[in-house]
């Protein structure tokens, strides 16, 4: 081992440590503050207590907002999965006239029409439809926003399923309904599960749409309530906010780990969280 080699190794590990610290340090707070009897904004070794959890559970809106989040996100995830599954199957298997143009348009849409670029017209439209302050309205807007990317990911998945599955069922006399139920649905299940989790995680973290469309605090999902609580400030919230952040993050991390372990994390280039 030359000194140069040793030096390079040391430099290499210093670099890795520095990068890891950069990513880890801001996160430490969420690991310590929820269990600290006098939580502050800085990171320090906690004086262990579960008092903050009790406070959070008693908070008038905290748990309620979780239910709102769940309501909105389950609706969105189910709608996205259902409609994307139907559309992607048809687009993958049937030569619909204008299919290629349709797909190209979808791909373009999914990146061009972002939430920020369309927030004003969406707000105005929902306002005129009387869907402001409606959780259903929020789910609808999120579904529309997630569908293009979802159709794209699922179509890739269906394209990879051999057509001979359906063909053989068809030769054996299965009707279209039977083919879809007995063959296509079970074979596509991993893809559907992935897309459902993807849609759920996305809508769970979405702040802009519910922030724009919901007014009453009792309808706000967790993402918006956190902002509301931050704005209020005060010492009560320093007990509630860390715990709430932790609880609110758990579903996302758990679902991510689940999909990762069951189906392996498939990297979809171009499709972000």
């Amino acid at each position, binding site marked *: 081992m030359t000194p140069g080699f040793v030096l390079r190794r040391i430099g290499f590990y210093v670099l*890795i440590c520095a*990068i890891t610290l*950069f990513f880890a340090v*801001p*996160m*430490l707070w*969420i690991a310590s503050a929820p269990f600290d009897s006098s939580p502050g*904004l*800085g990171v320090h070794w906690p004086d262990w207590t579960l008092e903050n959890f009790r406070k959070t559970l008693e908070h008038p809106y905290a748990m309620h907002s979780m239910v709102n989040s769940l309501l909105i996100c389950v609706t969105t995830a189910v*709608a996205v999965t259902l409609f994307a599954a*139907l*559309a992607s*199957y*048809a*687009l993958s*298997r*049937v*030569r*619909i*006239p204008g299919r290629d143009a349709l797909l190209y348009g*979808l791909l*373009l*849409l999914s*990146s*061009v*029409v972002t*939430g*920020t*670029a*369309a*927030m*004003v*017209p969406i*707000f*105005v*439209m929902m306002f005129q439809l009387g869907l402001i302050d409606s959780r259903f309205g929020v789910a609808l807007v999120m*579904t*529309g926003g997630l*569908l*293009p990317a979802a159709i794209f990911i699922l179509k890739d998945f269906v394209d990879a399923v051999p*057509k001979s599955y*359906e063909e053989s069922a*068809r030769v054996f006399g299965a009707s*279209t309904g039977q*083919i879809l139920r007995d063959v296509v649905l079970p074979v596509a299940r991993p893809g559907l599960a992935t897309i459902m989790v993807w849609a759920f995680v996305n809508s*769970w*973290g979405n*702040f802009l749409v519910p922030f*724009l469309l919901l007014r009453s605090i009792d309808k706000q999902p*967790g*993402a918006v309530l*956190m902002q509301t609580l*931050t704005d209020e400030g005060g010492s009560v919230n320093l007990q509630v*906010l860390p715990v709430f*952040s932790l609880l*609110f*993050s758990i579903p996302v991390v758990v679902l991510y780990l689940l999909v990762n372990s069951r189906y392996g994390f498939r*990297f979809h*280039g171009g499709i*972000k969280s």
Partner: protein
Amino acid sequence: MASPSAPVEGVAPARGRGPARDVAGLGVGRAFGFVAPAFLLIGAFLIFPALWTIYIGITNYRLTGVEAVSPSVVGLSNYTKALNDALFHNALWLTLVFVLGSAIIGQNILGFTLAWIMRRTRPAVRRTVEAFVLLAWILPSTVVAYLWVAFYDRDGGTLNSLLGTQGTAWLIDYPMACLVVFNTWRGTAFSMMLYSSALQAVPPSQLESARMFGASGWQTLRDVVFPHIRGHVLTNTLLISLWTANDFSPFLLTKGGPNHESETVPVYIYNVALQGGELGYSSAISFLLLIANLLVSLVYLRLLRRRS
């Protein structure tokens, strides 16, 4: 070339269109039925709003007041207003800084560095580092924003305790720098993953032959690795720039303040539309953002097509 043979005596000629061409016997009619619900939703909540911005953008529509009830068409005056609006210029400049600093430089370089040095580290080290980087990416944006608000806090913030600079209000004194660091932290995971998979596509034999010629690490990167991943660098840069330019999380950290010092275009649109109530004017700016997105996306899709 044979013509259809005449029907044989006693066997009636078959009629109808015959079996459907697709594998499940769905047929074009039902296929349209399958596609319709998704496209209705996309049309209503994505395409229609995008087109409607054009119309709202040429009116003086407001959230409240007379113009809320009966807006009138004002032609291109919203766009001429934008040309002379110092705050809009400010927002454009800040967005440029944000994209350049956090995406094109920050995420790109940090993501590539991570992908490059993680190639041959021990799996345990690799997994740990990647876990933190990925966690920063998958945590909900409000949680992440709050983490950084706490991190930067003037009084008890971790940054001040680490640096011993108690009392420095980072988000007020250096808001754009804070946002750039924050977004680099937030989004590096994507670049890391993209570059990791790109680096795997570099033939090991070429790396090995470069080593046999005695090329240095830097020479290997420049002459062997980079030519292979050039397309990926471009793709990655375009995508993360697009996302960063449309990112709303600066609002969660600074709300554009203090005094418009961190008001990027998305935050500016929100503030003009919902704080200021000028829906017409904000629509005009939204439309400009849509056009910018469209241009970047078209370049991106061209690249994708050429590669496939």
